[in-house]
């Protein structure tokens, strides 16, 4: 294996056009945040029953994906798989960028975003949410240090330690994110310990899917060679993660079905929850899990870059659907305050909470993705994050052997 050469990608017109295009989304998101803030949240689809809406779907998705995007780096530094080493820097950068995007959404959706300073200075240490704020900021710092250790030759010897800390930190972080919901004893859909590990597995899949798409995109646009060997490794890994998420989703629903008092919410999500049921079965399970699995492992589509890209995109769409079902579906299901009674009130007691995503919310959510992409592209433009080649013979330690095998 040759020495890997990391290089900034070229600037020039296409780069700035792309950046301008993404920047447009960022501006639009700022505009909708201002619009929501100026008028008050009644202009969104959110209300007193569904208090967290589409912005939170995007935000939690991005935050979860951020920790997953670090996977590639962890595999290389912690588990010493050299094949992944050339990709470790991008992995770290993407992790920070995705987290920044998710946090931007969360902050802009606050009722009082102008009080960000309050959120930073007043802490209630009993609050899992407050802990998450610390975890998020810490994650950025730890990953930044990790990147520095990787990129500064003199510091290389610390890479493994830094990588290990980042790995532990991200596990805690995703557990924390899952616990934001897991600690809500009030709501049937959330009151379960399995949410935290499920979020970790979800992060693996979502983060890797985004990683693959970004990798494919950047290498295509910057005209750098990207070998099949590394790509196929990644897509196989993605397949494993998708399977694992499916397994956890299955366990989650089976345990819930085992607990009698949760039958109601299960019936709601799985059978008669209307849009939530459709999103669950059609988008999350069929389009977001089974189809990409088939695409990734099918002998012909599994070898096509186009199809691998599509499969990754499907995983992302399925992931957003999954978040939608968990976050919004979980709130829409009426809270059981009086078992055995039919409940009627002026405050939507006893009926499914109604929610329709509004345009500003969606634009704000997309803006978060745009922030993440913009940060990534600027990062690879100004610093040496990407190897100038990822061609098979340049990066695959087993390449000669495999070549021989293939020709034999």
């Amino acid at each position, binding site marked *: 294996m040759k020495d890997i050469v990391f290089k900034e990608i070229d600037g020039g017109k296409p780069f700035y056009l792309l950046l301008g295009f993404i920047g447009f989304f960022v501006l639009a998101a700022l505009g909708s945040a201002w619009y929501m803030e100026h008028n008050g949240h009644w202009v969104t689809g959110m209300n007193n029953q569904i208090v967290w809406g589409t912005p939170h779907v995007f935000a939690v998705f991005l935050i979860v994906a951020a920790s997953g995007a670090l996977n590639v780096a962890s595999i290389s530094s912690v588990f010493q798989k050299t094949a992944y080493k050339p990709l470790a820097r991008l992995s770290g950068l993407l992790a920070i960028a995705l987290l920044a995007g998710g946090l931007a959404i969360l902050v802009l959706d606050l009722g009082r975003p102008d*009080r960000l300073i309050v959120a930073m200075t007043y802490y209630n240490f009993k609050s899992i949410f407050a802990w998450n*704020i610390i975890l998020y900021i810490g994650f950025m710092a730890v990953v930044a240090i990790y990147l520095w250790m990787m990129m500064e030759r003199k510091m290389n010897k610390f890479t493994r330690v830094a990588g290990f800390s980042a790995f532990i930190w991200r596990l805690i972080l995703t557990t924390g994110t899952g616990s934001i919901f897991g*600690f809500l004893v*009030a709501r049937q859909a959330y009151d379960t310990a399995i949410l935290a590990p499920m979020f970790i597995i979800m992060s693996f899949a979502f983060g890797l899917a985004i990683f693959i798409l970004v990798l494919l995109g950047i290498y295509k646009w910057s005209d750098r060679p990207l070998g099949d060997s590394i790509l196929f490794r990644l897509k196989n890994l993605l397949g494993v993660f998708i399977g694992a998420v499916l397994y956890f989703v299955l366990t989650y629903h089976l345990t819930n079905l085992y607990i009698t008092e949760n039958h109601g919410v299960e019936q709601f999500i799985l059978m008669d929850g209307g849009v939530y049921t459709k999103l669950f079965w059609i988008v999350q399970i069929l389009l977001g899990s089974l189809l990409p699995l088939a695409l990734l492992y099918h002998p012909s589509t599994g070898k096509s870059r186009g199809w691998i890209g599509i499969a990754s995109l499907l995983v992302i769409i399925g992931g957003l659907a999954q978040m939608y079902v968990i976050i919004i579906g979980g709130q829409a299901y009426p809270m059981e305050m009086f078992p055995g009674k039919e409940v009627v009130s002026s405050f939507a007691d006893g009926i499914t909470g109604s929610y329709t995503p509004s345009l500003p919310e969606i634009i704000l959510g997309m803006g978060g993705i745009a922030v993440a992409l913009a940060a990534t592209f600027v990062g690879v433009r100004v610093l040496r994050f990407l190897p100038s080649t990822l061609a098979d013979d340049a990066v695959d330690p087993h390449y000669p052997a495999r070549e021989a095998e293939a020709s034999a």
Partner: protein
Amino acid sequence: MSEESNIDIYRRRFMSGTATAAAGLAVAPGVMLTEVARAKPADQAVSSDIRWGMLIDTNKCNEGCNDCVTACNEEHNLEGFGRPATDAQWIRKVTLKDKQTGNIQTLPMLCQHCEHPPCVDVCPTGASFKREDGIVLVDKHICIGCRYCMMACPYKARSFVHEKLQDQMPYSPRGKGTVESCTFCVHRVDEDILPACVVACKEENHNAITFGDMNDPDSEISQQLKQHSSRQVRADLELNTGVRYRGI
């Protein structure tokens, strides 16, 4: 209730009197001030010797009556914008129909002023807090409007202010982008006066709501809680709510 102080008898006579009789009592300010002497002095902090609580007798709660809700909306200027999904509701009437027997009951639902409030536990900034005397409030000066407390409250007791407000009541500040809920009319309680909903219910002679200090064994609420069986809604969560119900 065998042994009662004179004050108790005196008080009960007033309470059982009709609304008109009571309203006819125009009390001179001087008299009121001696009466106020029973209240906590204005410059004294509340203490945990008291735990304010409320007992709601669903048998006395009238199905068509909405007076407690109206009184609350009036007191705190909660008139909405005609948008039920986003307008604030601190207290609401809930109608229950037994799935098996068809029996119908109604009751008011409000913040239960939990002893172990989930809203306070989850609040990232500490804006949601419990006063020494058990009243759970939002300090709107530090609330960032994240709505996590609304996710956590098992009683849907909280509302988010979705629009810009003006001319709020001086004792009940509320504003866009923050979360709010029933305050147990803390501004009244601090001056030893019953919450608006309790007064409204009394004035209609329904007397379905009893309010008082649950730590004081002699208070009317403690006596009633002792004599009759009552329930906490979602007692399984062990939040030790400050609002109890009879007859459900």
